[in-house]
């Protein structure tokens, strides 16, 4: 058993060494960022968040340091990241996307570490209110999107939407689409998937149903393979509307959507207040972006033969990749 205990010691010692090396400077408050995974929108949230801290006059290195981790879209890893933040007594956890926020909020319970979230559609139904937690919601401007589609495609009748059945953000967005589509003379054809690998098959299904256009949500699985969806829809000549600027850059024709960088900035401003001790996170209600941008990709628009009315063109921001 001696050798056994030696090995146990070795493993423990290496874990200790590894963890200690990461602790470092104690005096500067650490912000632990728990991002669910990497894709353009979530990355923009993080970049915007850091910009928001800078805009508030905080300097990285003297006022705060950042410990950034992403969970690679794995819930159990998100939990362990949150747990290690809690063990290291970070001054604040910043959670990007719902699974990360859920994990941070659960692991912060013991010590009441403030949690600042972003990129969450419905913080109330996700149980992310009431404690030492606040942040920003990325609820989609559904009516603005329907209005935009009606203006660009006056004859369109049906809108196809792909979503993941287990993403509550998407499910609530679909419900809102279905409730409001009638007001703009549309019907909604939605197809749910359970995994990213099923998204392109679901896109084929929608194309076969003969929808006049696709409207895309911020569904993590769908956004992850949006490029391959666009390949199919381009071939079929069906325009796809995005829900934020990165999707338009990727080849969606247009979007009435949020700018995740701005959303991140707004989140950073809240975090700065909490970090400075001006207010407790529990005392700040979560915020929703009220302004949305109209983004267009003129290359994609030209390909689809869509004419942009002047009133839309006046507001729109060009978002095609150079």
């Amino acid at each position: 058993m001696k050798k056994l205990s030696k090995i146990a010691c070795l493993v423990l010692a290496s874990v200790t060494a590894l963890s200690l090396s990461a602790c470092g400077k104690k005096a500067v408050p650490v912000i632990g960022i728990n991002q669910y995974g990497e894709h353009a929108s979530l990355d923009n949230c993080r970049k915007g968040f850091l910009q928001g801290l800078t805009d508030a006059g905080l300097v990285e290195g003297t006022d705060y340091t950042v410990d950034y981790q992403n969970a690679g879209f794995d819930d159990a890893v998100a939990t362990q990241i949150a747990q290690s933040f809690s063990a290291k007594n970070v001054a604040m956890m910043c959670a990007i996307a719902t699974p990360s926020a859920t994990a941070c909020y659960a692991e912060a319970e013991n010590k009441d570490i403030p949690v600042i979230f972003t990129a969450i559609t419905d913080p109330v139904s996700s149980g992310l209110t009431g404690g030492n937690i606040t942040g920003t919601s990325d609820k989609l401007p559904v009516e603005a999107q329907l209005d935009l589609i009606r203006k660009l495609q006056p004859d369109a009748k049906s809108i196809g939407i792909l979503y993941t059945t287990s993403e509550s953000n998407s499910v609530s967005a679909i419900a809102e689409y279905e409730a409001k589509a009638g007001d703009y003379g549309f019907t909604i054809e939605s197809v749910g998937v359970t995994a990213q690998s099923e998204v392109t098959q679901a896109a084929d299904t929608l194309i076969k149903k003969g929808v006049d256009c696709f409207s895309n949500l911020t569904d993590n699985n769908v956004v992850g393979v949006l490029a391959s969806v666009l390949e199919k829809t381009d071939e079929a000549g069906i325009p796809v509307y995005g829900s934020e600027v990165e999707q338009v850059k990727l080849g969606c024709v247009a979007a009435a959507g949020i700018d995740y960088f701005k959303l991140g900035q707004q989140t950073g401003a809240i975090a700065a207040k909490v970090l400075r001790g001006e207010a407790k996170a529990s005392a700040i209600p979560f915020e929703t972006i009220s302004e949305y941008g109209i983004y267009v990709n003129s290359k994609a628009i030209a390909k689809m033969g869509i004419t942009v009315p002047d009133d839309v063109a006046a507001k729109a921001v060009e978002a095609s990749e150079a």
Partner: protein
Amino acid sequence: MLELLVGIVTQGCIYALLSYGIYITYRILDFPDLTVDGSFPLGAAVTAVLITNGCNPYLTLLAAIAVGALAGLATGLIHVRVGVRDLLAGIITMTALFSINLQIAGSNLPVERTFDTIFTAAPTMALLGGVSLLARKLILSALLALLCKALLDLYLRTKNGLLLRATGDNAALVTTLARDKGSMKILGLVIANSLVALSGCIVCQEQRAFSATMGTGQMIFGLAAVIIGGTIFKKFSVVRGTTAALIGSILYKGCITAAISLGLPANFLKLITAVLFLVVLMLGNFRRKGEKRHAGA
């Protein structure tokens, strides 16, 4: 640092329940059981719904065990009675459970802080109210892991337990004893998936949430934990398979936390975790070579 270790051991103990399940199916029955990816969130879904409807959190443990048993029963019947291959039988149940789990919970379901979990309920507080939530989580999950291990060890030594072990090793023997090896397989799957669902139940209470995707990759985790534990303790015949599964699962969680703590770019996390696994397994192998030489001398 101490807290980091507490976190690792807590996670390791909670997920050890799942590893015991994989130990039964993979090691004892030689049955690659993919039901796990569905029965784990099944336990969590039932727990989240019950707790948010005011059910006693301790009762959810029993409820999770019951529904996990049903999931195992389904895979067992599909395999033994319908004659579907083992892997596919598990895949069929797992696939069906994804929809069933969503149907049970509605969608991803949070368990808000106004609801008590086993870590905050009155009886727990009466006994362990003096210590922090972190410590309560550690104590309760370690107790559960050890209790399940003890019960499982006891069972495996009974006549029925020996039959179960024979089913994987030497099925012909079971038949010559005039017992049905199919029924033994079904029983093994029932026990295994009860443990897996119980693990899902505790994770749900610890995380205060059910998410439909929480089962993804759990079978792989369990396999890795059982194999890591098994490799390290290969030479020690006194160490039981369940102990190896418990240690393996703590080591697995330890590797992930170590990788997180290394402070390398976030995208390297899985690579570092993989390297750490390899290191742990190599340590186990080196030791074994040394022992052999020793034994030969």
